[in-house]
Each structure stands twice: as structure tokens, then as C-alpha cells.
């Protein structure tokens, strides 16, 4: 009979993979230094981190593992100065991803892929913060000149955010396929999965 509760081994795996994910996220985040790149950041993150999360999902096929894994990074980001909204947003996203994974019984590639695509949208929360704090930001940038403020107001809107979310999902799907290819090529052979 297969034990379906999270054991110590799984919890340790969650911690280790959270560190890898965190480091990758920050190195990819460096491109956010160019403000426009913020908008494609979720897509790129999805492509790069696909392998990590897919390997994680292949290793730990148990309920609630993805939720705990996913909530750790936003949690650490909150300690580094983001708002509580990021964590709440991530929690909702992770819950949906977890449920999708449950439908596929934790081991079907199709549902794991969908689940990762949803999982990947949590990072949009950090952009949503900008939207929620928009007035304060615009007030500060007033001295930059009217044209700048206008450009900004046009850029940061809800329809554009929907595009960012779509980008995140597309990036997630691409990342999941790359992850699957790499899993087949390297990790199955090495006996990791």
C-alpha cells in the first residue's frame, strides 16, 4: 500500500528545491532592472524554472507538496519587503495548481503541465502590487514630466496585466515541455526520478 502522507524525506526535498527555485528566480529577476522587461519576466521565469518544478513534481507525488513548495518563495519575498498581498495571491494560485494536480492523480504529465502553468502565474502578484499601489507611485514620478506619467498610466492597466498572466501561462507550458525533455534525457537515466 502506498503511503500518501508527506514524510520527512518529502519535506526535505521541498526545502532543497525551494532554495534552487529561489536562486533561479533571483538570477532571472536581474533582467527586471530594465523596466519594460518586467512584463516578460513571468514568461522567461516559466521557461527557465520549468525543469526544476517538473523534477520536483516527479519526485514528490503526494498531496499538498506543491502548495508548501510554492508558498515558501513568496513568504521569503515578503520578509525581503514585499506586501502581504503577494502571499495571499500566491496562496490562491497554489491552491488552484494543487487542485489541478489532484485531478491528474499527481502523476499524469498533462495535468502536471497545466498545474505548472498555473503555478507560474504567482510571480504576477509582484506586478499586481504595482497596480494596487499605483497612485503612490504616480505621485512620486510626477516630477519626471507629464509624458512619462502618461506612458506609465497607459502601460500599467488591468488588460495589460491579463496579457502578462497569459504570458506566464504560455511560458509555463513551454517550460514544462523543456522540463519533460530534460527529464527523459538525463534524470531517468541517472535514476533520480
Amino acid at each position: 500500500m502506498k503511503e500518501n502522507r508527506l514524510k520527512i524525506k518529502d519535506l526535505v526535498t521541498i526545502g532543497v528545491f525551494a532554495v534552487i527555485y529561489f536562486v533561479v528566480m533571483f538570477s532571472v529577476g536581474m533582467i527586471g532592472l530594465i523596466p519594460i522587461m518586467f512584463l516578460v519576466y513571468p514568461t522567461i521565469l516559466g521557461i527557465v524554472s520549468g525543469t526544476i518544478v517538473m523534477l520536483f513534481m516527479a519526485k514528490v507525488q503526494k498531496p499538498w507538496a506543491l502548495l508548501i513548495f510554492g508558498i515558501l518563495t513568496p513568504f521569503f519575498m515578503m520578509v525581503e519587503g514585499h506586501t502581504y498581498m503577494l502571499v495571499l495571491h500566491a496562496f490562491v494560485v497554489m491552491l488552484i495548481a494543487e487542485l489541478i494536480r489532484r485531478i491528474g492523480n499527481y502523476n499524469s504529465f498533462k495535468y502536471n503541465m497545466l498545474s505548472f502553468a498555473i503555478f507560474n502565474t504567482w510571480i504576477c502578484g509582484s506586478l499586481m502590487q504595482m497596480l494596487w499601489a499605483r497612485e503612490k507611485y504616480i505621485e512620486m514620478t510626477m516630477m519626471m514630466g507629464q509624458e512619462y506619467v502618461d506612458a506609465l498610466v497607459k502601460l500599467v492597466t488591468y488588460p495589460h496585466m491579463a496579457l502578462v498572466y497569459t504570458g506566464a501561462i504560455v511560458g509555463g507550458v513551454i517550460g514544462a515541455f523543456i522540463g519533460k525533455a530534460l527529464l527523459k534525457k538525463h534524470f531517468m537515466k541517472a535514476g533520480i526520478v
Partner: protein
Amino acid sequence: MYSVKSNSLNPNPIPKFFVTVLLGFTILHSINHYSEWALIIVISIMYFINGFRKEGIQNIIVFGILFFVPDFTILAKFPLVIKMLLSLLFVVRMFYIPYASGKFLIKTSDVGSIMSSMDFLRIPKAVSIPIAVMFRFFPSFEEERNNIKMAMKIRGIEIKNPLKYLEYIAVPLLIISSNIADDIAKAAETKCIANPIKKTRYITVRVHIIDFIYAFIMTVIVVGGRLCLH
């Protein structure tokens, strides 16, 4: 992580974390400028009484620069591209106050006290074990990454295609990491981590007066700053 002697001037991680979350509110709901300065100064004072002088001074100087950046009207004359880059400073300025308090949390508390405060708050094992592993694994992750880079350099593998490079780095890193994960799990099992009784910790969390003072002062400043705005 720095090891800090447990003393009555260093608040335990719980109020520090509470303050960080509280200051997160100031991003979405702006507060009075004077209160912002008050928050930064309180954090610097906390650094000073715990002996972190450099960090305390640095904190004030960095916030000072960020605070006055929007006042330089000369910036408005720069071309749009430079303005775009400068706008990053505004983002940093918005997030600086909670960041300062988070940095204070990380700098002045060690892993042991964070663990025992998680026990104190009755956080389930499913969350506290991964967090502990994260602290344990961060240094060895950096080590492994440098090892792989060095091995690539020795064999003269050059980076031409960034996608290939990613594969060369990521695959061994992931394999090593998942082996380390198994090792850590075995070590933890050997130390009987699954034992359901209450654990004794090397560092225990004690509640001092400074905890209440720190949390109370910060709350008053934030609430006061919010009320003054209206």
C-alpha cells in the same frame, strides 16, 4: 546569518516578523513622511543597541538618498531612456521600509531562534522543516554551483550557446541537489526528527520587555502616520 548572543536588547523573531508584515501595509496605504523617517530611525536605533553600528548608519544614509531623489527637478530634463532606468529607484524607494525591517530580522536573528519561535507559534512541521532545510542548504548550494563552474573551466568548456550553458549547469546541479536532499533526510531520520514528542532546543525564545516596546512603537508610528495623512 550571524550568531547573536541572546540578550535582553534583541527582540525575538516574532515581533520582528510582525513589524515586517505591518510595514508591508505602508506600500499600499501611504503614511506621513515624518513617520517614515521615524520608522527608519527606530530600526537604526535597534541596530545600534545591538552593536551593528555600520548597518544602522547605512540604513539612514540609503533611505536619505532614496527619500530625496524625487526632489531633484534636474532629473526631469533627462531623455526618456534614462528616466526609465531611474524609475527603478522609485520602486526601490517604495519597498525600502519593509525591506529595512526584513534585513533587521535576518541580520540579528540566528536560525536557532527562528526555529524555536516557529515552535512557539505552533507552526506545523510540514512548514517548519522545509524552512529549516532552506537555511541549511543555502551555503552548500553556492558551494556546489562554484564547483561545477570550476570543473567546466578546467575542462575548457566555453559558453557559446546560453541554452546549452543552462543545461550544462542545471542538470548536474539538480542531480547533486536531489542526492543531497536524500542525505539530509537520512541524517534527520537518524537524529529522530519524526519523534512526536516536544523537542528541546539549544536556543529557547524568551519574551523580554523589548519585544513589546519594539512592536508597540512601530504600530503607533504606522497608525499615527496613517491618521495624520487625513
